[in-house]
Structures are given as C-alpha cells and as structure tokens.
C-alpha cells in the first residue's frame, strides 16, 4: 500500500468518526431483550394468586399467624417467641405489595376504563382487597390510598381509612360484577365462575365488617356495612364448593407449598422446628370429643406413654393403675417453660425430657404436602359470621342457632366427618345454649371451659372450624378475647418494648423496619396513627383491650397434671380393651 493511501485513510477515518452520530438505535439497544412488554392479563392474575398461596398462605401463615392463632405449638425463632427479626418482617410486608398488589393494581390502572375488562378489573380489586385486609389486620396503618404511585415515599392510611375503602370496594364490586360478563381465561380461584366471585366478595365484606365491629372507632362503619351485606346473605359462600382454597403443585418444585418446602423437604430444619400440634387447641378439641382432632392432626410418631388410674375391668368402684400410649399430644406456645414465680419444680415438668416425636403434627396430607391447601375463606366460617351478625341484631333469614349449627355441619363436611356431626352437636358446650367445665391445662393455669353465652360458643366453634386459617384465628381472638390460649412464658424480649417476663399473643406486627430508612417521615406519622409505640404490644383499633386477670405471674395454684391425657379412651379398663389399646398394669408396692 502506498503511504499516501495510509495517510488518506487515517484522515478520512478520523473525519468519519468525528461526524458519526447515529443514536437512532439507542432505544432498542437499551431494552432488555429477555423481558416482556404486555403479557396476557390472566397470566398476570395467575401469578398474583400463586404468590398469595406461597406468601400469605405459606410464609405469613406458617411463620407467624398459626402460632398467634393457637393452631400450632412452640415454634422457636424470633417470631415464634413473640419477637421479630427485621428482615422477616420486611419480607412479610414487602412481598404483599411487590409480588401481588403491584401487578394487579397495574392491571386495574391499565384496564379500568375498558368495558371489555369490567369483571376482571373487579376481580383484581377483590383480590387486592383480600391482601390489604391481611395487611391492615397485621400491621394496623398501612400503605393504601397512595400505594403504587409515582412518589418514592408513600403515606400510611389509618385502619379506619383502609377499612372504609376496602369495604366500599367490595360493596361496589358485588354490584358491578356481571354474571354474564368477561372473565379471566386462567382463573385459579373460581375457574371463571362469576357468581362464586360475588359470593366471595360478600362473604369477605361480612368478615371485615365483623372484624371492625368491636372498635369504637369504626363501629358506625361496621354497622352500615353489616346491615347492608346481611341483605345479600343469599349471595355468600354456601357450601364447601364455594370455599376459596388455594393449592400448590406436587409436580413443580417451585410451586411446592411453603410447609413442604420448608419443613419436610428441607432437612436443615430440625425436627423441633417443624410445626407441632398446639396443646391448648388439642385440649379444647378433646374437651368436646371433637372428631376433627383426628382429621386435623396426625398421630404422633412415637406417642406419649402416660400413667393413669382407671376402673378395673368389670368394676364400677375398684381402680387399677395402668400405663398406655395416647396418640395425640401437643406443645404449648412456650414449650416446657413455666414462670419462676409459680414455684414449680422443673424436674417434675411432664414436658421435661420428652423427645420431639411424642408430639403430633398437623395432618400431613392437608397441611404439609407439596400441594397442601390454604383456605382463604370458607362456607363454614361464613355461617358463624352470619350467626354473630344475627346475634348483633342484623337481618338474616335464619336464627342464630341455625347458622351456628350450619357452621358446624359445613365444617364437618369440609373434613368428611358429616356422619359424626349429629352426636357432636349433643355434647355439652357444643349444643346450643349449653356449657362445659372443660379440662385444666398442663400447668393448671388455663382451662377449656365454655359458658353458655352464645358468642362464646360461636367464637369457640369458629376457632375450631378455621383450623390453619392463622390470620382469621388471630383476629378473632384479638377482637373477642374468648379463645383460651396461654401467654408465652419464655418470650424473646430482645426486640420488643415488652417489660414483662411473659408475653401475651402479639397485638400486631411492627411496621417493616426498613420503613424507618426508606420512608422516614411517613413512618413517624404511621406511628402517630397507630396511637402507641411501634411494637408488638401496641393494640390495633380492631383489638379489644385485654389484661389477663389474674396476671400469670401471680398465679400460685399452678400444678403439673395429666388431666389432658387421663381417661383418653374412657374411664375404664374395659374401654381400653374395647378399643384394642395395649396397656400395662402397674403394680404399686
């Protein structure tokens, strides 16, 4: 090549570089080729439901709500010990918004003016309302009216503001939903059945209205919705077919239930961390010989052997000492712990030295399988809500008693126990208008007695029926304080402002601690809306004030006992023989 050419090329190339300024392709270059601009709305909805199952039905339920509702025994960990970890609380709150609400809200915003999508927009709103209802009942003030906006910081709404909007949204949705209208092609909730969506909408509205009915702040709001929604009592969940039950998928590891993934599959979890039966829940079911005890729980792997005094076979007076195994045993919320003030000798503690396998666990197939169910709302629950609404004086075509029994019947049907329901309804304390002295708990601090008060019966049966609906159980207790659960006798006080050595069930969860940094001034206003310090011990507006009397610390007649287990199969040796139970006779010397 001649030199002149090289020089020429250099200069021309130089000038070319200087003058090149083609930025037209910049936009395409800066678009991620592995993402999607506008997928089908039903596939977005599908994702929101999946996340609800995994997060609300999985994470939140298993890590906090089930413990707070008294459905499982001692779990350990900070939440299980009535404290919290920042990261967990952040995740609990955050995923509701970032993995469910934002996708549905974006869909609502994009399609709200398009009549072809009117039903789907309402369904998305109902689903978001359900998610918000969990948030507001857990944290109190939450992000609502300003949520999913364009600002970096978001104000909180008070509980009252949130419930006002949620109930109004449900009211409008039940009006706007059109049975003949559009539906999601992929609808894992009701498979496109709009009339069931209407039932869900009304039942949820009844549930939220009752939830706030005890709050002086919101009683008017509750009243207006209760009186309105009870007019629609025909359009509520009626049978178990109407239940909103979310499920996982055995064939897809990514859709395994939280409980399977966390407790069964993951062997990093030690046996003591796998949820066990709650002693007090078992105590109550046993008190009323409730057949759901066996439907809800699996027999313990290595069940507990107890010593008991029974009537000798064929005798009505002579007793013998026997030992036999009982199939079910539960842990209290705080395991073996008692309070030092009671003067109980720890070596006599019946819990002392028990291996983890003596405790029963919730029914594996239903609650720990890969595709374990999660009940969002059920027909049985709806009947108990109707019973309570009717009791409060709202309209309703049936009597309180009738709703109450329907609740029990529907619950029994849900667990395939319809044949047992007639006998059950005759038991003292279950039978409408009857009471039961109950059984004292293992420390003689709490018992399972029930009064003949209608609300006491409705609440107790609703607690039984809503097994594994952790949030609903927790809400019911915080509102009524009628569920006989014990305080935590050995709580973790490192995070909370609690100064007592025992702890009642948390009144709420703290605001996500990350908000102190990312949303500081709104966080401070949220604390003001809360009306107390941002702690587990500050009650929400829906909670009823509660002070246990006498205080657990001052209980002096505490005593270890086996009342829960004794006479498990009956009062007589004959019962053991009839039921084919192996037993040993203990010869006392």
């Amino acid at each position: 090549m001649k030199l002149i050419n090289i020089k020429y090329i250099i200069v021309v190339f130089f000038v070319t570089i200087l003058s090149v300024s083609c930025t037209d392709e910049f936009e395409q270059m800066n678009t991620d080729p592995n993402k999607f601009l506008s997928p089908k709305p039903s596939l977005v909805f599908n994702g929101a439901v999946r996340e609800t199952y995994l997060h609300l039905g999985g994470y939140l339920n298993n890590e906090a709500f089930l413990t707070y509702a008294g459905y499982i025994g001692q779990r350990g960990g900070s939440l299980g010990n009535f404290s919290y970890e920042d990261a967990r609380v952040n995740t609990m709150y955050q995923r509701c918004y970032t993995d469910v609400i934002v996708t549905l809200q974006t869909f609502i915003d994009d399609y709200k003016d398009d009549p072809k999508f009117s039903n789907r927009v309402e369904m998305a709103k109902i689903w978001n309302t359900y998610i918000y209802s969990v948030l507001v009942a857990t944290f109190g003030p939450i992000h609502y009216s300003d949520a999913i906006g364009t600002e970096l910081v978001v104000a909180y709404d008070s509980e009252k503001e949130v419930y006002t909007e949620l109930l109004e949204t449900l009211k409008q949705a039940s009006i706007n939903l059109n049975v003949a209208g559009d539906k999601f092609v992929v609808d894992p909730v009701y498979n496109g059945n709009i009339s069931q969506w209407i039932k869900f909408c009304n039942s949820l509205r009844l549930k939220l209205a009752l939830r706030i009915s005890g709050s002086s702040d919101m009683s008017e709001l509750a009243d207006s919705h209760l009186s309105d929604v009870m007019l629609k009592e025909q359009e509520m969940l009626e049978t178990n077919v109407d239940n909103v039950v979310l499920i996982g998928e055995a064939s897809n590891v990514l859709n395994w239930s939280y409980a399977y993934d966390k407790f069964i599959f993951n062997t990093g979890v030690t046996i003591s961390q796998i949820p066990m039966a709650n002693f007090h829940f078992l105590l109550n079911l046993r008190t009323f010989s409730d057949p759901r005890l066996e439907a809800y729980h699996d027999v313990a792997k290595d069940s507990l052997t107890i010593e008991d005094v029974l009537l000798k076979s064929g005798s009505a007076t002579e007793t013998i000492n026997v030992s036999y195994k009982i199939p079910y045993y539960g842990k209290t919320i705080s395991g073996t712990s008692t309070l030092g003030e009671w003067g109980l000798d720890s070596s006599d503690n019946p819990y002392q030295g028990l291996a983890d396998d003596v405790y029963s666990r919730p029914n594996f197939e239903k609650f720990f399988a890969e595709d374990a169910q999660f009940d969002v709302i059920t027909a049985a629950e709806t009947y108990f809500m109707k019973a309570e609404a009717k009791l409060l004086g709202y309209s309703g075509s049936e009597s309180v008693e009738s709703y109450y029994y329907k609740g029990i019947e529907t619950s029994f049907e849900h667990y395939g126990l319809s044949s047992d329901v007639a006998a059950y309804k005759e038991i003292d304390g279950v039978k409408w208008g009857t009471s039961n002295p109950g059984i004292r708990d293992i420390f003689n601090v709490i018992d399972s007695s029930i009064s003949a008060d209608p609300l006491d019966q409705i609440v107790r049966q609703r607690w039984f029926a809503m097994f594994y609906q952790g949030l609903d159980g927790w809400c019911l207790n915080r509102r009524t304080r009628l569920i006989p659960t014990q305080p935590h006798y050995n709580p973790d006080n490192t995070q909370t402002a609690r100064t007592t050595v025992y702890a009642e069930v948390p009144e709420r969860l703290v605001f996500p601690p990350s908000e102190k940094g990312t949303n500081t001034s709104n966080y401070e206003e949220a604390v003001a809306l809360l009306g107390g310090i941002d702690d587990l011990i500050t009650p929400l507006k829906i909670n009823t004030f509660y002070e246990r009397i006498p205080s657990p610390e001052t209980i002096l007649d505490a005593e270890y006992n086996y009342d829960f287990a004794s006479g498990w199969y009956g009062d007589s040796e004959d019962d053991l023989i009839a039921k084919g139970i192996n037993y040993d006779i203990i010869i006392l010397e």
Partner: protein
Amino acid sequence: MNIKKHIVLMLFFTQALIYSQNKNIRGVVKNDKGEPVIGATVVYKGSSIGTITDFDGLFELQVAKQEAPVLVISYVGFVTQEIPVAGQKKVNVLLVPSDIVLEEVIVTALGIKREKKSLTYASQTVDTDDFSETRTSNFLNNLSGKVAGVQITSSGSPVGSNRVVIRGATSLTEDNQPLYVIDGIQMSTPQGDTGLTSNDGGIDYGNPISQINPDDIESIEVLKGAGATSLYGSQGANGVILITTKTGRNTNGIGISINQNLMFTDILEYPNYQYVYGAGQIGRLALNAGHIDSETGYPNSSRWDRAYGLPMLGQDVINVNKEPGQYFVQPDNIKEIYSTGITSSTNISLQGSSEKGSYRLSYGFLDSEHTISGMNEQKRNNISFNGNYKLTNKVESRVNVTFVNDLVKNRIPTNGNPRNPASAYIFMKPNFSKDNLIPYKDELSGVAYTYEGPFTNPYWNIYENTNQDETNRVLFGTDLIYRPAKGYMFKLKATTDFRSRVSEVLNNKGATYDLDGEYRTGDLTAVTNRYTGLFTVNKRVKKVSIVSTLGASLFNTRFSNRTIRIDQLAESGYATVANNAGYPVVGEVDSEKEIQSLFASASLGYKSTYYLELTARNDWSSTLPKANNSYFYPSIGTTVVFSKFIPKNDILTFGKLRGSYGEVGNDTAPNRTLNLYEYGGNYLGNAYFQLPNTKLNENLVPERSKTIEFGTETFFFKRRIKFDLTWYQTRTEDQIMELLTSPGTGYTRQFVNAGVLKNSGFEIVLNATIFDGKDKGFHWDANINWSNNQTYVESLPEGLERVELGRFFNATVGAEVGEKFGQIRGRAYAKDPVTGHTLVSNNGRALFENDVYLGNAQADWIGGLRNSFGYKDITFSFLLDVKMGGDLLSGTSVKATNAGVYEKTLYAREDSFFGEVVLGENGNERRGNGLYGNDYADTVIKGAYHVNSALGVRDAEGNLVAERDAEGNVIENRRYMNSQVYHYDDANNQIGHVYDASYVRLREVNLGYTLPQNILSGTGIQSVKIAAVARNLWFLYKNTPEGIDPEAQTNSGNGRGIEYGSPLPTFNYGLNVNVKF
C-alpha cells in the same frame, strides 16, 4: 447542543492559528543509548521561546533574534545541555542521564504525555519497582499505602475483589471503582462480588483487573480529580488508573529477563477461644431423651450449635462423626484446618529494538494454593506482546496484545454462607476437631452427619462443595499514528477487551443445609470495544506553548450471561447438568451499551510559568432516555510556577500553585429505563408473569460530579525534598441510583436521579532523600503520603432520610442526610436517658433499643510511610500502611459470643454451672428469692448480672426508664441469670461488637541484593537480583479482636463497616530472583 459543539470547535481552532507559524531550526534529541528523547524541552537561553521534542525526538524552532543564541535542552532524568546554535539549521543533541530528577513528564489522559509542571490537577505516579517482588496475586494490593487519596481494601482472599476508591465514594449505590486503562485499552472490570450480602455471602469471582501480570507493568499513574479524568468521560468519573506496560525500547540486542517468585502464606492471628466448656446448652450435654444415643446411651455432642455445655473432662459422647469418643479439649481444632499456602510466579520476557521499532514479549505463570488446602487454587497464564514499528518517518503503528488464561478452583464462599469453611472458626465447638469431624458423612448414603445450628462441618465444605471457573481474556489495542508535520499528530486507536468466563459450582447432595444439592453453570461473555480518533498539536511558539487535542470516540460494550441451575442432584458428586433430578432453571442476561463522544482540550503555557487548560466533552449514551442522552461537560484549570518570581535560592528549588474546576457527566448501566414484565414460571399448568421488584425510570438524566481543586507542588533543597499539597472538593449531583424504596410503592428498589454526595479532603505527598547515596554509599529515601477524604451526604431524594447500603441481620450501614457516609446503626442495651443505667426486665435480661447509632465506617485519614535504604549492592525497604478511624461491626464477634466459643464467654460460667447444675437452684433461688416470697438462704453469686443496671419501666409518656424509688433515685438491680443467657444478651448488644478499625500495618518489607557486576562478567548475564520479601507481617496498632482483620469487609461495595465470617488475617513471605541477560 450547537453551543456545545461550537465550544468544542473553538478549542480546536486555537491550534490552527499556531499551525501557520514559521520554523527555521531543526534538531533531534537522543539519549546516551541513541534513543530519541520524547518530550524534551528545548528553549533559547534567556528567553522562554521553545518547544518540546516529538515522538521521534525531533524539534523545530524559529531562529532566534539573539546574537549568540544558546539552546537549553532539558529532560527529566538527564543533565541539561546548553548548545550554541548561532547560524546552525540542524542540531544533534545527546543527553546524558543525571542522578537528580529534574522535569517530570507524565502520561495523562488518552496517553498524552505532558510536563508535570503544566498540570492543573493532582496526579501521582506510583513506584512500581517492587510490584513483581513483593508480589501478591492481585497487584492492586501493592498500591496500598502508596498513593495519597487512594484507599485500597483487600478482600482478604487472594482471588477476591479488592476495593479501590479514589478520593472517596462519589456514588451512593454504584461501585465507585476507578477506570483502568492499560496502554490505552479501556478495561471492563466489574467487581466479582456484587450483591454478596453479609448473611448469605457467596462466591467472589474477583476483579478482572487482577489478571494483569505485575511483571509487565512499567508505570502506574493515578489521575484523581475531574480535571484529570474529564477526557475519559463518564467512565473516568471515579478517577483513572493508567497502567503503562513495559516496552522493548532502549534494548541493545535481545534482552531476556527471567523472574521467579515464591511466596508463602500463613495465618497471622487466630481468635481467642475458650477451651473449658464444650458443646451443649445451659451447662448440660443432654436436655432430654432426644439428645441421647439410643444404642450406647451416650449423649450426642453434635446436637448443639453452641458451646455452653459441660466442662470437658473426657466424658463419653457420640461425636459428630457418629463414633463414640470422649468429650475433650481440642485446642488445635482451628489451626489444623490451615496449612502454609504457596504461590509461585514465573515470568520470562524477551525484548528488542531497532531504529524502526521495538517489541517485548512476556510470558508469566502463576500457581497458587491457599492456606486451606484445596481451596482457592489458582493457575494463571499471561502472555503479552507489545510492539511498535515505524512505517515511515511520519507513520507509526503500535500493537499491544495480552492474553490471559485464569483457572481458579474452589473459590471460598464468603461471609455467613453456610458453605464457607473459612468461617467455621466462629462456630467451632472446643471439643470438635478433625479427628471427630471426619468422616463427615455416611459413606453409603452420602448424607452429611447432621447437627443443629449454623455450624456446618468445614471438612464437608472443603471436600464436597467444589467450584471452578476459567476465564479467557484478550486485550488488544492498536494505534496508527500519522504525523503530517512537526508537532501535529493524527492518531487512530482501536481497542478490544474480550473476556469469557465459564464457571460451575457443585454443592454436593447430602449437606445438612441443602440435602438435595445444587449444581450450576454459567457462561459469560463481555466484549468492550473502543475506537478513538485524535488530532493533537504540541507546539511552542515564542513564549507560548500549546498542547491541544480534538477527538472523537465510539465505545461499545456487550455483556451476556447464560446460566443453568439444578436444585436437585440425581447422583452424588457429578458436576453436570445431566445430573438432574428436578427442573433446571435457565437464566439469560443480555445487555449492550454504547457511548459516542466528541472532545477537545487545550493547554496553553506562557513563559513556562503560566498555564491555562481547558477541556470540553460531549457524550451521547445509549443508556439514558432519548431526550436526555446527550450531555456536555467542561473543565478549566490554571497553574502558576511561582518559584519563577523569587530569586534562585538553596531552599525552594521549584514551586507551583494550581487550581482547577472540572465536571464529569455520567450515564448509567444498560436496561434501566423501560419497565417490562418478567416470565415467572408456570402455576397449575399456565404461565405467569410478574413485574420485577425494581422499578426502572424513563426520565433519567445524566449524573454530574463537580470538582474544585487547589494544590501546590514544591521542591526544596535542590529537589531532595518534594512536597505536594492538594485540597479538593467534589460534589456529585443528580445521582442515578438504585434506591431501596418503601414497598408501598410496589417496588423494593427504584432508579432515581437524586441526592448529593460531597467529598473533600487534603492530600499530602512528601518525598525526601535523606542520604543521597552518592557512589554507592548509604542512601535513604522516605516517602510519605497522607489524605483525609471525608464524604458527606448532603441530600437524598425528597422524603428520604436514609439509604441502606449494607446489613448484618438488623444492623445496617447507610447514608443519612447531613451525616458522614457510612453510618452504622443497630441494636444496643436500652439505657436510662438520665443515668445511663442498663435497663433490664425482672428476669435480669437486658431490654434493647433498635436502630441506635453504633458508629461510622469512614476513616479519618489514611496514609503510608515508606523508607528505602541502600548500601552498595543491598537494598532494604519497608512500608507502613495506616488507616485511622472508621468503625467496624464484627458479625463474627456477635456470632462467636452467641456460640460461646470466645474466651470472654467464660465470664460467670463457673458460678452458673455450680448454682444451676450442681446445686440445682432455680432462677428465683439464684436471685435470692425462696418460695412464696421468702428469702433464699444462699447469697453467693450464682451467675451473671448486668452491672450498673436497673429494672426498665415505662414512664407517663411511654418511654423506657429505670425504676426509681419515691425520692426519684434509680433502684439498682442485681438479678442473676444463667451465664449463657447473659452472653446472649451480650451478643444481642451489637454496639459491643463495634470496633475501631484503625490500623498501622507493616505492609511490605523488601531486602534485596544485586550480585556485583564483576561476578557476572563473561557469563552473558547482565544482572541478578535476589530479594527476600514479606507482606502484612505485623500489626503495629489495631483494636479489633484477635483473628479479625480491621480491613475485613463483607464485600467490595459501598456498605462498608460490617464484617462477618471474614478470613483470618494472613501474612506472606518469600523470595524473588530476577535474572537479566
């Protein structure tokens, strides 16, 4: 836009004016080896008319009007020549080297060489002489303590990511790493540990800059301020590290150099452990039947995740390896994990030159083994070629090629990752040892023997979790230079950085924390190309000198990564995607970025005394939205050589004052503007889509950092002392950052433009020749550098008062408005606001407050002191590296306290053990309360209690305060509790685990001996140098607990101030032999 273009063109125009000047006298300046001297100053004596020589050593000047003109030719490192030139048209000048450094010429942006005295900004040359001797596998470690204003944080792992920050962080959320330019090739150097959190950790793939072979490095220049970096554009916003590699210039014949280096690594410090109480809980080995082995009736010592058990007296137990054994003290259980690491580096280089050009070819091989045998095994091959060739007198071409093959096996997972064997020391029970931890699995099932808690068997981790990655990298750069006339140059430059990394990780099935195992593979490719065209003018006319540049560049970088992950292995031990029992998860990441730029600069000098420098640049970046993708930024600077105004004296030899103001605009990473849905997977037979948790921003605008800088450069006592002082202030505005946002927005992170960070500080460089060592006598040089950068957060986006940068459980490190960058917050004992009593509840345990200020991670100042001595053929040098101030929250200390392994957890254990286990007292009895409110007779202390504590109660406003009596005096508390519970409280009190991370460290020691020439004569060997070297030998000063390196950090990101599971500090020592033929 038009105005900006005009400015660019105007700067260019100034060159054209000078282009038309006459020229009469020509000459060439060569050194004693016959090489052209580039950049030598040629002036008429008694005037300031002059020029500097070009790349061929040529110069041209007007004939002087003086009667007997004398040319003064000077160049750094050479004796100044004076040559009478009356009547001459052509002069040949031969410069001979001088011992005293006179004028410094340095490489500045875009490879333009400039007289140092004309610079208007701070730039520091790094002494690279001993980089190949006091060697580490990442040469960046060798910069530590050597450059003012540059803070290097070593990752603690030889294959990890170092953090290099010049003048503090300018960006809240980006990595703040400087731009590395090697021979004009812009390197893509993403940190290999992005996103590794303190709790989870992961694999740190290191920074790609570490692949440069220190044997190839000729010099390193650090450009600090915006004035220095504006010509590199956005990518230079954090400063630029210019690396020039060795060339074959000035070689007679063929030069061969062989260097062999052998370095050994050992642990410098082990933690202080208690070897009294073994695994267990509240002074027991078994709490219930579940803890007893059913066959033998012995307790399982593996059940426990803490060492709060019994005194170890040889009790029979079942060990972790499922074998019966004794519960004995194992004082070497940590030491035995480690052995001496060896790193061998071999380098051979060949070089030669002729009149037409020169070349250098170099091959290096590094073979390194870690202190944990089998981990961090590195084998690296470097081949580099560097050549230049003159096609004609006016056209020259240059080529640089570097090829790197880097194979690393078993990188150690970092931080709190359960797979990190190096963090086993946090949880190692005093009765555990290699003997009872191995075998760690059931040979038949392959399942690891289980035990509770965070302790994972280090031997499982070493042998069953493997990983491997191989990087192939090519750096290629070529220049074509055309000099149409003296002082004018067109230059075209094309460079490529191609990097591919294939990696795989096998976490074998059977581990307690991951029973079904995991396998993943990644295939990453990154290509960065840059094309630059430059036109420069380098002239001196009468009293005016000018160095001016006009250029354009096109930068393009593409990245792609393909990953496949298997969460369930079918068979134990097979590292292949085919070994799949579940669903492979496929990942694909693709991005591309392009920046087009137009830039110009002009440096005008007058009388070699006054200098004015202007730069201007406009970038167009593909990463910004269309409307905002063009941004312009200028700089201006001035220098005055004030020593010209004062009479010559013996004290001040040279002095200059400089000041500059510069801006740098900055874009962002690709794919940050358009919000799109992600495919999530399938649910119940249908696909689902979700919005990502990060919200992108369609309205991003470029960031800007603005630096104002003043400085002096002075020489005293005939240049025996050099003293430079710089003050600077940088404000970075409109930061593009990925913020943690309230989930109420629907996103956890969002990209925004906001926030202002302000950096300011002083930098001092002091070099002194204390003994000048004439005639091979004793010489002593001392170099000091010192800097005190302070980074403040001036503002954050509206409504935000904090940005979280790092986290250890509930402790955070962040940026807070009005505070120093790096505020550490966390949990501490609740205290009475008036008296400061620790508040406790009535079981004696402390109450806590969260989100309490714990400290700040930022250092007050950093510095280095280097002394080098020489006598005859022996040289000796050492470097002290200093960091003062800055706090460190040690997660290791928190967890080791919780686990009961630290020696300090012995406090009150014996009392607790006696009261609770031997006497069987309950909590009330230990506190002196008998049953039903009666006193308990025994008043001997039975455990621990919080000193200076009181019962916490709530006052009328709901605040926690100490319980007070009727007179308002605090009622002191003395509630004894089990010592384990007390140490739990201690572990929860995070402020107690925050340490001052200051250090004075003996960083480098080098003792060298050069064989006398007379021994070598006739052997063909030119020189032999043997050096005994060592690194990190000694902490002269440190406040962190034994075994915790004050430099330790959880990653190289901005979340400084947290350490968790960091490697034990190491030191290195070894030998270097260099032979030149």
